[in-house]
C-alpha cells in the first residue's frame, strides 16, 4: 500500500514536471523542471531495486548533463525576441508525430500482454553490475577507457591554443 502511494506520487510528479518542461515559456524553467523529472525517475528506479541506475541517473543526468544545459543556456543568454523567432511550430509538429508513434507503440505492447511479469526485478546493485562488467565484459570495458582517452586527447589537441 505504501509502495503504491509512493509510486503514484513519484509517477505523478514525473508527469507533472514533464508537462512543465514542455509548456514553460522560459527555457530556464524547462531545464529546472527537467531536473525534477530526473530526480523522480531516480526515485522510481530506487523503488524497482535498481540502485545503481538510480545513482547514475542523479549523477549523470541531473548532475552533469543538466548543468551543461544550464551553462549553454546562460552563455547564450537568448533574448525573448530571439526565442519567439524560433520556429516552434515545426518543432511542435515533429514532437507530436514522435509522441503519437511512441503512444501507438506502448498501446501495442500493452495489448500483447505487455512486459509485466516477463522480467524479474533485476539485481541492480553496484556489486552485481560490477561483477558482470569486470568478469565477462572486462575487455570491452577497458577498451572503452582507451576510446575515451583518445577522444579527450583529441579534443584538447584540436582546441589547444598555440603557445609560441
Amino acid at each position: 500500500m505504501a509502495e503504491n502511494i509512493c509510486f503514484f506520487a513519484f509517477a505523478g510528479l514525473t508527469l507533472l514536471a514533464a508537462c512543465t518542461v514542455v509548456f514553460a515559456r522560459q527555457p530556464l524553467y524547462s531545464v529546472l523542471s527537467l531536473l525534477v523529472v530526473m530526480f523522480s525517475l531516480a526515485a522510481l528506479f530506487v523503488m524497482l531495486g535498481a540502485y545503481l541506475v538510480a545513482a547514475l541517473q542523479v549523477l549523470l543526468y541531473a548532475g552533469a548533463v543538466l548543468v551543461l544545459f544550464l551553462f549553454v543556456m546562460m552563455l547564450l543568454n537568448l533574448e525573448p525576441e530571439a526565442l519567439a523567432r524560433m520556429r516552434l511550430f515545426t518543432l511542435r509538429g515533429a514532437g507530436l508525430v514522435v509522441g503519437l508513434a511512441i503512444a501507438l507503440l506502448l498501446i501495442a505492447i500493452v495489448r500483447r500482454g505487455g512486459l509485466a511479469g516477463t522480467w524479474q526485478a533485476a539485481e541492480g546493485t553496484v556489486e552485481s553490475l560490477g561483477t558482470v562488467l569486470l568478469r565477462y565484459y572486462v575487455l570491452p570495458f577497458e577498451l572503452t577507457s582507451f576510446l575515451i582517452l583518445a577522444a579527450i586527447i583529441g579534443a584538447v589537441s584540436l582546441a589547444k591554443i598555440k603557445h609560441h
Partner: protein
Amino acid sequence: MTIPLPWLSVELFACAWILVLLAADLLLPEARKASLWLWTLAGLGICAILLAGQAIAGGHHLIQQMFLVDPFSRFFKALFLGTAAVVVVMTRPFGRHLAGRLGAFYLLLFTAVLGMLVLASVHDLLMLFLGLELLTFSLYIMAAYLRTEARSIEAGMKYLILGSLSSGFLVYGMALLYGFAGSTHFEAIRHAFEVGPVPPIAVAGLLLVMAGLGFKIAAVPFHLWVPDVYEGAPTPVVALLSVGSKTAGVVALTRLLFGAAPTMAGLWTNVLAGLSAATMLYGNLGAIPQTNIKRLLGYSSIGHAGYLLMGLSAGSQSGVEAVSFYLVAYFVSNLAVFLAVTWAGEQLGSDELEQYNGLSKRSPFLAAALFIGFLSLAGVPPLAGFVGKLFVMLRAVESGRLWLVAIGAVNVAISLYYYLMVIKRMYLDAPPTSTTFRLDRLATVTLSLLLLGVLWLGIVQEPLVRQILVSVRP
C-alpha cells in the same frame, strides 16, 4: 574466469605505450619532442616482437568468447603494424606543421593502431564496435589536425558527420542481431543463424552492420566522404585511412561474415558482388577527371575496395586468401605511392596534378617510385598489384560470376588510363621550374623497401602464398 594475458600481450603493450606516449608528451621539453616519432616506431617494433612471440607459440585462443587470437589475426596485425610504421616515416617531413601538437598526433596514431589490432581479433559485436570507434575517433581528429587549414577542418568535419551516421547504422544493426541471437558473441549469432528460423529483422541487422563496415572500406554507396577527406586531410593520415582503415574494415567484415553468418552466405555473397561492381565502376570512372593527386588516389581507393569485395563475394576460404594477398599487394603499392606523394607535396607545395609536370627531371627517384607504384595499383605484370587482381578474379570465376570478372577487367583498363595520364605528366611534360630535390635517407630506404616488395611479390609469390595458406582461416 582467468584471462590468459600472454595472448593479449600485443594489445596490452599497445595500451601501455599509449600511456607512455602521453607521459612523454607531457614531460619532455619542447625541443626534444621532435624525437617522439622514434618512440612511436620503437613501440610498434616491440609490438611486432610480441606478435612474433605469439606466432612462434601458435594456436587458436578464444578469450572471453570475444577476442580470437589465431594465425589469421596475427597475419593482419603484422600488416597493421607495418602500415603504422610507414605512416610514422611519412610524418617526418610533415611534422613541422604541427609545432607543439606532435605528441598528441603520435598518441592518436597509436590509439588507431590499437583499434586495428582489436579489429583483427574481433569475435564479438561489442568489440567490433569499440575497435572501429577507436580507429575512427583517432582518424576523425587526425584528419582535422591541420586546424589552420580550412580544407583539413572540412575533411575532419565531413568524416565525422558521415562516420557518425555509419556508426548509427552499425549500432542499429548490432541491436537487431543482438535481439535475434540474445548475445553479442559471434558464436552465439552463428548458432542462431544455423538453427533458424531467420526472421527478416535479423537479415536487416546483418545488412545494416555490413553497411556500417562498407563505410570503413569506402564501398559505393557509402563512399561519399572519400574524395573531400582525402583531399583535405594531411597526407600521412590519408595513407593510414587508405591502407590501414580499409584493411581493418575488410578484416572485420571477413570476421563477421565468416564467423557469425556463414549460413547466410547465399545472401551476402550476392550483396557483396553487387556492391563490388558498383564500387569498381564508380571509383575508376570518377578518378578520370580529377586534377588533384590525393582526390585521384581517393577515387582509386574506392576502385580497389571493389576488387576486395569481389574476392569476399566468392564466399569461400580461397576467396579470403585471394583478398589477403590483394591486401598485402595494396599495402606495398599504395604506401609507396603515398610516401612519394607526401614528399612531393612537401617539396612542390601543392597536391595539384599540374605540379607533377616533369617530375622525372626534378626528382628521378620519386618519379620512378610513383611510376612503379601506379602500374602496380593498375594491375600491370610483373608487379604485385597484377597478381592480387589475378587471384581475386580467379576466385570470382570459380564462384561463377563471370559478369563481375568482366567488369573487373574493364576497370583495369580504365584505371590504367588515369594512372598513365599522371605518368605522362611526370615523364613527358615540361617542368614548371628546374629546381631539383631529394628525399632524406630514412624515406629513401623505406620507399626502396616498399618498391622492392612491389617487384618481389610480382615475381615470387610462393613464400607469401604459403604464409597465407597457413594462416588464413576466417
